[in-house]
């Protein structure tokens, strides 16, 4: 893919210096033990405890709808733009389309790389089943997600925020959509893993050929319909572990839903209150 040299003149990739230092000699198992000891994780969470979530809507004033989400240190902004006609299309499609762009700011070029494209495809698939697409024939809804800080589970954060942003934009939806991530390593399940945990779950640390599962699962749920709109897994996980994980993730999603609902109601109440002020101003 050609690179636009005029826009960014930085190097194509950077390597952190500490990779070359001699200090980096800990084995993966030691790292794991440091991260998880006495049933507590590095940030004092229990394995199946979600991080605190902060939500805010209406952060991008020019977008139709937008949302900002924080999961611990992970910060994501999602903005939704008006439905517009699909460019360069000749045939008639009965259902609308969703276009998702997923941006990650890990010293990358401005162009989407394969991982971002994969994530946007997953996000698109997750959101497609919740938006009432038959109401937008031949239209597309643009959704942009920008990861400001990646400290694990950015995809879940983006999908949850996209659900909030869509409802903020007034796009008709069947259901609220929330998402959660789970990492598995060494018979421990980490709900909502941080970046280091996620990195550890990516590789297999038991070298002695044990049959441990390791990997990451992301699901997104439609709450009232109890439907899974997206299921994505990487790693090496047995069927039993997946079955258990799905249950864990379902309950986690159920816990997030009231938060999102409360936030949306609060936001609307606030808007009404502001409007009331406005009405009073006009009438006086």
């Amino acid at each position, binding site marked *: 893919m050609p690179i636009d040299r005029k826009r960014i003149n930085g190097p194509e990739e950077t390597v952190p210096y500490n990779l070359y230092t001699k200090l980096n000699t800990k084995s993966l198992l030691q790292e794991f033990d440091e991260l998880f000891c006495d049933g507590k994780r590095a940030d004092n969470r229990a394995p199946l405890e979600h991080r605190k979530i902060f939500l805010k809507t209406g952060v991008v004033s020019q977008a139709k709808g937008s949302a900002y989400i924080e999961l611990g240190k992970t910060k994501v902004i999602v903005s939704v733009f008006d439905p517009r006609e699909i460019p360069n299309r000749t045939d008639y499609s009965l259902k609308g389309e969703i276009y998702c762009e997923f941006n990650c700011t890990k010293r990358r070029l401005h162009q989407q790389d394969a991982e971002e494209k994969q994530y946007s495809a997953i996000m698109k698939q997750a959101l497609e089943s919740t938006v009432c697409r038959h109401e937008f024939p031949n239209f597309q809804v643009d959704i942009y997600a920008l990861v400001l800080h990646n400290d694990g589970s950015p995809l879940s954060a983006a999908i949850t925020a996209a659900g909030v942003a869509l409802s903020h934009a007034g796009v008709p939806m069947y259901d609220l959509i929330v998402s959660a991530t789970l990492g598995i390593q060494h018979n421990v399940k980490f709900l909502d893993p941080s970046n280091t945990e996620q990195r550890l779950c990516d590789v297999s640390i038991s070298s002695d050929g044990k049959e441990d599962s390791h990997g990451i699962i992301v699901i997104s749920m439609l709450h009232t319909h109890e439907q899974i709109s*997206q299921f994505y897994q990487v790693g090496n996980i047995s069927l039993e572990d997946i079955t258990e994980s799905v249950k864990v993730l379902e309950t986690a999603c159920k816990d997030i839903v009231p938060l999102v609902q409360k936030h949306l109601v609060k936001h609307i109440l606030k808007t009404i209150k502001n409007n009331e002020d406005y009405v009073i101003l006009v009438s006086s």
Partner: protein
Amino acid sequence: MTLCEAEKTFVLHGVEENFRIDGREREDYRPMELETDIVSHAFGSARLRLANTDVLVAVKIEVDTPFPERPFEGKLEFFVDCSANATPDFEGRGGEDVAIEISNTLSAAYHSPKVFDLRKLCILKGRKCWKIFVDILLLECGGNLFDAVSLAVKAALWNTQVPLIRQIDIDGNNVELKVSELSDCQRLDVKTAPVMVTVCKIGEHCIVDPNVAEEQCSVGSIVVSVSENKFSTVLQTGTGSLHSSTLLDCLKLGYKVAQRLDDALWSTLSKIQPTEDVGFLK
């Protein structure tokens, strides 16, 4: 191609009856045809034909520098080329989305070291490693791409000959490798390489290996990639959503079929004679 409601109903009832339009049961595959070692200038190659889907995979090997964060590992890269010969829709950038989806799913499926150990491709820690390019060319599209591609990739990797390193000379920053002849090579270990199965939900039931008409009737499908007895990646495609119990049923079915598919592939690979070549012309 669009189907009318009556045709869809016929397909749907057939799936319910466990008797599909071509006489298969829900868990049956269409017959496949496999051929290895057909690209002479590649290190390994395979061609798989599943009904109207035709996939050609070629493997090339290069010496490269390992990633600084993973000095003990080699590299594996997948590239999918959607030829406009397959369907005119692939012309220009038309096939890009499909290509990226397939190559990303493949790299996710081969990601875990338990599935494909990249450490075996290391030549000299932090300095030299093998880099494997897996080039996938879609010659014809007749549905069920993921399954066909994963089988062809596995067969091509099985067929791949990695040269042996005879001698390494280190002179300051220069590393010189002496490599064995092509006749004296090592095969890659692909016993645990994943096999993908697309499980398609039609009505209340799940089927494998959907043909084009059945793909039209389905609301969503799940691509399951299984290596030995574990899942290496699961991806949901299509626009529908599933209840969690349905999802688990799909996973179970995919798991079961993937085992059979893997067995079938191995028994076929074991039958390959070294001098049988057919090529495209027969």
